[in-house]
């Protein structure tokens, strides 16, 4: 069965994924809103940058993040200057890397949801005295609820499943950066196939249930209408 280290990894993974999902919703919503409504010529560039983690090998993303956040990198210099030290091989570094890695999984469903709503309900709300912020919470959020749900589930699940970025940026430190996928890797390396099985099967069931929920709640989570 599972040992303490396994439970530590599970707990850490859940903590990481929850925190990352919250941050992703806070960061992803304005980006998705901007992408859905802007007519700026920067739209293509920003959209492509956000989508980059979809196609980039995680190792490549992890490598660049490692370099950037390391003692010689721009971000690393900055974090050292404000007294935070360097971020690689810390939980904080892992959170930042995961946010970037899972960003498209949150931004794209939200952007689709916002685009499907269009501008008409926003104009109607304005003619009914609702300020833009008021309109966002009283009209957009309720209408985009399926989009928010899809975005949260995908962001959470994708963070739980990551490996390459964790390997590069987080390393393998128990209770700090050793997430489930790392723990499975450790078990396989040391020939503990039984325990690797327990964790892997758990991930398999979890992933299936997540997608099942997603497809049951929203008929087509990839293209919201």
């Amino acid at each position, binding site marked *: 069965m599972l040992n303490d280290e396994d439970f530590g990894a599970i707990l850490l993974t859940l903590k990481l994924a929850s925190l990352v999902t919250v941050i992703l919703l806070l960061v992803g919503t304005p980006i998705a809103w901007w992408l859905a409504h802007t007519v700026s010529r920067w739209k293509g560039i920003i959209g492509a940058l956000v989508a980059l983690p979809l196609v980039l090998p995680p190792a490549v993303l992890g490598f660049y993040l490692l370099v950037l956040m390391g003692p010689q990198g721009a971000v690393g210099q900055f974090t050292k200057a404000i007294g935070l030290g360097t971020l690689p091989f810390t939980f904080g570094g892992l959170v930042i890397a995961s946010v970037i890695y899972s960003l498209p999984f949150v931004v794209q469903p939200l952007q689709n949801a916002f685009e499907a709503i269009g501008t*008409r*309900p926003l*104009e*109607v*709300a*304005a*003619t*009914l*005295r*609702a*300020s*833009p912020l*008021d309109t966002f919470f*009283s*009209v957009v959020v*309720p*209408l985009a609820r399926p989009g928010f749900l899809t975005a949260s589930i995908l962001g959470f699940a994708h963070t739980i499943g990551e490996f390459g970025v964790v390997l590069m940026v987080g390393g393998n430190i128990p209770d700090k950066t050793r997430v489930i996928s790392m723990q499975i890797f450790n078990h396989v390396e040391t020939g503990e196939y039984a325990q690797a099985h327990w964790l892997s099967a758990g991930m398999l069931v979890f992933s299936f249930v997540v997608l099942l929920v997603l497809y049951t709640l929203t008929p087509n989570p990839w293209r919201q209408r």
Partner: protein
Amino acid sequence: MEGIHARFHLPFPDFTLETDLNLPERGVTALFGHSGSGKTTLLRCIAGLERPREGFLQVRGKRWQDSKQGIFLPTHQRPLGYVFQEASLFPHLNVRKNLEFGRKRTGFVRNPRGLEQAVELLGISHLLERMPDKLSGGERQRVAIARALAVCPQVLLMDEPLAALDLQRKQEILPFLSRLNSELDIPILYVTHSPQEVTRLADYLVVLEKGKVLRSGTLEETMTALDSPLAQGQQASTILTGTVSAYEAAFHLTRMAFSGGEISLPTAQAFAVGERLRLRVYASDVAIALHPVQDSSILNVLPATITGLANDQQGRTMLRLNVGDTALLASITHKSASVLGLHKGMQVFAQIKATAIL
């Protein structure tokens, strides 16, 4: 004038909206034109949904916009009601909550009058607990109008509220719109491309073409000006408004007094004396005689003065007549006009063959 003063300059790729309008402070002003004439854009400018770089807008003495002084009230701070072409009800709220959405944000919450009046005017009290997707198209549009009225607006803007509905639904809503005009004390700006809706509802008319104001004035002036697009072809007609002066029950005949005299028409229903009526007289239903005709089946023969003539290329002549203070259009053949020797300033008799109550 304490009405609406709207001056906008807004360039688009295919046309430029260029208006300088003074609109009356009550009654229905129809913004009429073909698609692409800029009528919806003008309405959106007044609502603040479009922001022209150059613009000036004053409504009932309050300045909403003045680009010279950098004043621009955003839409949500303008005390207006707006009805879009599609009802655009919030799908996640039932009818009652849709109606309350604007009211909650106006500070009129404790005064239930606006809401009750809107619900009553549009006849939707039985729909309050329904969700929008359980309403018919006509019901949805009525709720949308009530929602716009529930905020007690100082001006009601309507963008082709009937255009998305079929004929039957239009007929269902039109009486409600007529009621709005008679019961509300605010200006209503009504965008439409339908001459029928103009003649039925409007008091004042603005004709737009390619973003410019072709003509604006009272309905009577603009419909009877010989060069007005509304005074051309089969649809050319005059609207007569007046009050019922008598009803002859034996003949089902209603008599209506108007500024040009009195006119009789058969009506299935009895009208009360004093009730306001609005009649349409097609130009093709008006004939001209040089002398009062005796022994004729035509009841309505009114003395008139010719104030203008226009020949078209199809053998017809449009006459503009003055019957008392009221202008009347008559469409006759070019040949008749020539044989009778009709000219401007001539005294004639207008024979009105048929009228229709609007």
